């Protein structure tokens, strides 16, 4: 028997999509039964009460969680989000209900052995409820009490060789797309750099010294499967500088219908026979392709590497060989001044271990600047807006490049600096008045 009636939530137990309600109920039951005789370290009825308080929110149309306060593990400034229920008497099982962010492995591959270990730990010391994964990428353990935080951390580090992820005003857990591990489009090893930078910057990740949060994300190519360009202060997007490799035979096979366009992604509808002219050449945004006499040509100099043609004909077209990353800065959600997309700051850089250029010429100068001049709760993108892209260029010590802008300014309100103007700014009004009477 359920501890709380959940008539509203129960309506979410039908329909085809997996029901989180059924799943929490399952966990609640499992805890109630406790077949394995576990000595639960937080209330057995945590899941019951979680359902109870959620049902109450469904009734009231409002959340019943309160601000967290500062809870965490010793010496770390992040990794735990404190949370308390605002109806603790009614739902004692979730009165204290903090989440822990566990740094996910790059690429999010797992062995079951490892996962099962985490399950045992979290069943024992937490609610048994998780997010696989949080929006930033972490494994999220949802709901435990303050005394368990250090215990979980101790077991994570000692038993699982596993650290917490980020929260607060620090580097957040970096994340990446599957990349070279399973994708033919990947222009660099997203997992390798993601792991390296996560580990290299552990101090920045755990001990807040920043004005606000900071995120890295790594996309292997401009398809952006980890959405770095929209939600990371530094977005790394794979690209190449040379030519798209063309397999002329495979082109023929697409045209002939032997190969399915776009890897079969449109198989759910009859779109008619594949038309390379209409579907590839005409849609190329730079119109740098030509298909004539059964031959496809690309004027690579004009290609912007948008991926469209490669996506449509992955067996015929392949990314170039001279690969690296394009780096964009400043993406973020709308708080405070509106959302920002990443702005291109480095058109191309090689992305090879140990990534010295990326660390020393990009990340660290930017952090120094932001830590020096960023205001409290000012994201990098906001600092860029406030001080201008020019300032970023100075910080990076690179030459201004038209690739950094979509278009030049349309207002001529140029802030010339005194040393750029012949003769400087000091002038004598009386000298001027000799030639120009009042």
């Amino acid at each position, binding site marked *: 028997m359920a501890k709380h009636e959940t008539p*509203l*939530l*129960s309506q979410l*137990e039908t*329909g085809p999509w*997996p*029901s989180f*309600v*059924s799943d929490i109920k*399952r966990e609640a039951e499992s805890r109630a039964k406790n077949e394995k005789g576990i000595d639960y370290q937080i209330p057995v009825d945590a899941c019951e009460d*979680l359902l109870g308080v959620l049902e109450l*929110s*469904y009734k*009231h*149309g*409002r959340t019943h*969680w*309160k601000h967290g306060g500062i809870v965490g593990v*010793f*010496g770390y400034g992040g990794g735990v989000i404190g949370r308390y229920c605002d109806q603790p008497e009614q739902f004692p099982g979730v009165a204290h209900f903090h989440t822990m962010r566990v740094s996910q*492995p790059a*690429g*999010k591959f*797992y*062995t*079951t052995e490892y*996962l*099962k270990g985490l399950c045992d730990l979290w069943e*024992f*010391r937490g609610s*048994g*409820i998780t997010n696989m*994964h949080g929006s930033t990428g972490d494994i999220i353990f949802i709901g435990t009490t303050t*005394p368990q935080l250090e215990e979980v*951390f101790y077991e994570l580090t*000692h038993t699982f*060789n596993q*650290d917490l992820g980020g929260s607060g005003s620090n580097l957040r*857990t970096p994340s990446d797309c599957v990349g*070279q591990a*399973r994708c*033919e489009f990947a222009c660099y090893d997203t997992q390798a750099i993601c792991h390296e930078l*996560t580990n290299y910057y*552990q101090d920045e990740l755990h001990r807040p010294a920043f004005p606000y949060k900071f995120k890295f994300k790594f996309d292997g190519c401009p398809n*952006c499967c980890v*959405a770095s*360009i929209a939600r990371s202060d530094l977005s790394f997007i794979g690209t190449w500088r040379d030519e798209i490799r063309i397999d002329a035979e495979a082109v023929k096979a697409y045209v002939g219908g032997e190969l*399915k366009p776009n*890897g079969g992604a*449109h*198989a759910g509808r009859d779109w008619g026979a594949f038309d390379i002219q209409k579907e590839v050449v005409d849609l190329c945004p730079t119109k740098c392709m030509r298909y004539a006499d059964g031959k496809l040509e690309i004027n690579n100099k004009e290609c912007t590497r*948008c*991926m469209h043609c490669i*996506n449509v004909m992955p*067996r015929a077209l392949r990314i170039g060989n001279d690969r690296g990353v394009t780096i964009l800065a400043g993406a973020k959600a*709308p*708080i405070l001044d*509106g*959302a920002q997309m990443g702005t291109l700051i480095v058109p191309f850089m090689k992305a090879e271990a140990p990534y010295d250029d990326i660390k020393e010429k990009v990340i660290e100068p930017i952090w120094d600047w932001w830590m020096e001049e960023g205001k*409290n709760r000012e994201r990098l993108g906001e600092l860029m807006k406030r001080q201008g892209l020019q300032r970023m260029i100075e910080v990076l010590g690179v030459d201004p490049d038209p690739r950094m802008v979509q278009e030049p300014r349309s207002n001529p309100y140029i802030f010339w600096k005194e040393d750029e103007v012949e003769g400087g700014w000091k002038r004598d009004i009386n000298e001027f008045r000799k030639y120009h009477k009042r």
Partner: protein
Amino acid sequence: MAFVSSGYNPEKPMENRITDIGPRHFEEFYPPAVKANKGKWLYHEILEPGVLVHVSETGDELYTVRTGGCRLMSVSHIREICEIADKHCGGYVRFTTRNNIEFMVDSKDKVKPLVDDLMSRKQDGGCYKFPVGGTGAGITNIIHTQGWIHCHTPATDASGPVKATMDVLFDDFRDMRLPAHLRVSLACCLNMCGAVHCSDIAILGYHRKPPMLDHEYLDKMCEIPLAIAACPTAAIKPSKIKLDNGTEVKSVAVNEERCMFCGNCYTMCPSMPLADDVGDGIVIMAGGKVSNRITAPKFSKVVVAFIPNEPPRWPKVTDTIKQIVEAYAKGANKYERLGEWAERIGWERFFEACELDFTHHLIDDFRDPAYYTWRQTSNFKF
């Protein structure tokens, strides 16, 4: 329950302390076929919805079966995932950037048993546990946030509306009939942890009442200057308030006309709650994308200013989304993302095609850049 120590000694927190070790190394977790072929993949193909094959230059093949992940999952559920992965996949599994679960096998004959197994597993109420799908030109899992299950600032729930929406969109999770990818995301408040600002369709929790002021406690619980600084519209001013008992306390005053309900003050100050049963609800946004394919990434646009919260199934929200999806399916060209379609036909046509009302709320009036969203040409469609 008795406290069981992990070995941690609160008296000597530094004893044996291990810190700064980061995540586990990814290579430990690669399935053998991935390890052997990393960086050597030649091409891929979607064999059926939810089933991909990647072919390596070594000749190796890797079959991936993607299943819907309700990312809010219990350890029992994860253990079941592990059980399946142990049975079919040599003990490896992966999660996608959109919280789906990927089971990988190294030969084609292992695919069908795996798919059958996955599709056969159901929850008590009949929901699939592991629906196969989410690939290609269809709808995959909804990226979402905490909502009423854990967060303190939401204007709507997350998991509930997501479940309701995925139920309605389920056929498109299992099929690939759309012109292109269609990504749905949800964020339960304007902080937009779900990064809904660049989704084809975004479900966004939104407050519509200015913060209440818990004057008696405000100065005790909050740093007033931080609360003031938090407001993007400078609507908050310091103020002295006389309580009913006559004592004067330091507090704040809100210029309600200038409030746009972002809740940023509440993030800084628990004595300024916004949540309200009828004030809160959902904004629908549309037309965003993040890929650089053909066109640059785009922000989503507000297309429905407000839909009340209707737990447990948010029918008006799901109906609206369905409407947009169907209009898009009908109107867009092959390879054309929702936002690209709207721009091609013109937003005036988008509202017509989706049968949505255009209200004054949809006109940008936030700061200078608003101007750039107005129409500065005589080119429009009647």
